[in-house]
């Protein structure tokens, strides 16, 4: 019989299953659960974008595109970034269309990391960075951001984490799961630390459209940062196109040239149907984005007020579509809190520990749900918190 333990890659075997996944597995067999767990928009892709996908199929556009994606799409991506965030990339050799933001992150890491290289990752953050760094042979160096800093990366912490082996900084803002953003001024402080180094920034800007009260700034737009920044972004969140699996990477040509090799050998090219739909999204989708962001903003206010009224200390998120309340005051770990909420009150939220060890005491709540659904979930959380308070009173 084959001995799988001798077959499988050690680094992959030792990669922990995503904490988010573990929690989602619990959900699978339960019924009547009001979940606030999903990390994707609840809007169906706008009809005109879907129609463009359908039309492309009707016209028989079923072939590979060039490796880096159709030139028209790359041109539209550049137009969009210039229009929205005042940054510009040469569509010919500085943009690669990828299979979602996830592939963008993966090829960015793999093209830069050599064995033993350190990659600085501020947590809490989306689950993929550290495992992908390890699989690429690198060493994740975690900076735990704090509630008192509004979960932002500070220049001080960054400076302390840099060693001669530091190759890269992951900058995951607007942030999943905290909803934190970095303002232009705050990014400037980070830029100051990096300006005279050889450190590359991987700026994950997938939630760039989802900011409330102020516009997103890309660190690539700051002086001296363009040359060292890889932007990973995509269509999933902003245009509600998660299932189309389409993202992109923007970086200076010397970086793109190498990333394109990995993309070419591993992926060939992103799905043609999705690419043609994305062109329509970029050309005529600004109003859809605006409408969806306004709706998220209303829900954000509703859920922030709701959780605060329940008595949970709650950082007011300024980006993405998550809120990250403190749930640590009841003598339960995050996992215990979320498990009891799930089993006793049939409401699902994700324990903060899924996003880093510093997530202990917190939970991620997604508000990519209808107001009716959110209101129902808030009622269940309130009832649970009441129960916990009573239990504490009895002790």
């Amino acid at each position, binding site marked *: 019989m084959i001995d799988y333990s001798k077959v499988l890659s050690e680094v992959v075997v030792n990669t922990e299953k995503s904490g988010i996944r573990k929690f989602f597995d619990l959900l699978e067999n339960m019924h009547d659960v009001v979940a606030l*767990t*999903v990390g*994707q928009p*609840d809007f169906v892709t706008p009809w005109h974008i879907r129609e463009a996908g359908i039309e492309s199929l009707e016209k028989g556009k079923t072939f590979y595109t060039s490796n880096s994606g159709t030139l028209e799409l790359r041109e539209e991506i550049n137009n969009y970034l210039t229009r929205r965030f005042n940054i510009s990339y040469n569509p010919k050799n500085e943009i690669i269309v990828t299979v979602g933001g996830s592939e963008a992150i993966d090829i960015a890491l793999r093209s830069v990391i050599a064995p033993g290289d350190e990659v600085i990752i501020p947590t809490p953050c*989306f689950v993929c960075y550290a495992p992908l760094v390890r699989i690429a042979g690198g060493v994740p160096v975690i900076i735990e951001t704090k509630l008192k800093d509004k979960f932002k990366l500070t220049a001080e912490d960054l400076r302390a984490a840099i060693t001669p082996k530091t190759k890269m900084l992951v900058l995951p803002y607007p942030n*999943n799961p905290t909803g934190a953003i970095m303002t232009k001024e705050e990014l400037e402080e980070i830029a100051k630390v990096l300006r005279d180094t050889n450190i590359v920034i991987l700026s994950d800007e997938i939630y760039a459209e989802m900011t409330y009260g102020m516009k997103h700034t890309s660190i690539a737009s700051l002086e001296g940062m363009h040359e060292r920044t890889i932007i990973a972004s995509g269509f999933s969140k902003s245009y509600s196109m998660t299932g189309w699996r389409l993202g992109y990477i923007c970086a200076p040509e010397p970086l793109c040239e190498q990333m394109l090799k990995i993309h070419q050998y591993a992926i060939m090219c992103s799905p043609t149907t999705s690419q043609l739909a994305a062109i329509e999204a970029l050309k005529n989708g600004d109003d859809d984005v605006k409408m969806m962001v306004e709706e998220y903003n*209303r*829900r954000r*206010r*509703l859920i922030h007020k709701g959780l605060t009224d329940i008595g949970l200390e709650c950082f007011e998120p300024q980006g993405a579509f998550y809120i990250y309340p403190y749930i640590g005051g009841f003598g339960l770990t995050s996992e215990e809190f979320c498990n009891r909420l799930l089993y006793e009150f049939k409401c699902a939220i994700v324990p903060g520990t899924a996003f880093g060890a510093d997530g202990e005491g917190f939970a991620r709540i997604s508000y990519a749900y209808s107001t009716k659904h959110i209101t129902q979930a808030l009622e269940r959380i309130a009832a649970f918190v009441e129960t916990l308070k009573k239990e504490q009173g009895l002790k």
Partner: protein
Amino acid sequence: MEKNLLKLLEDDARLSTEQLSVMLDTPKNEIEKKLSELEANGTILGYKAMIDWEKTDREYVTAMIDVKLSPQRDRGFDKIAEKIFNYPEVQAVYLMSGAYDLSVLIEGKTMKEVAYFVAQKLAPIESIISTATHFVLHKYKDKGVVYGYSEVDERGNCN
């Protein structure tokens, strides 16, 4: 604020003033004031539920009637429209451009009842030149709501 308030209510009239106040980042008393104002000046005409009667055992038919008119001196179509919309079985009356003048939406228990209304009440009205009655066979979508379709969250728990 007014436009956003109206849009939210058009979508879900059951939102409480408290929820509206949070969602629109506007004090509750201002929302209340605005609502009474909009109700008083006839901008908000009512709050109704969207009901899919096909899901019930209630018997009913709906018809859209194209009505051609000869206009009356000085009063245009208004007086005839009023005469028509006063019948309780009439759900809606629109003045139309194009091949006919009024579109009348009527609801009755049976086809016979609708036929009776057209023949006995509508057709005899002076200045109605002709009517063409179309029965509705199935309602797919009304006021932005898709009928006979219950929303299932198909999103994968993926990230």
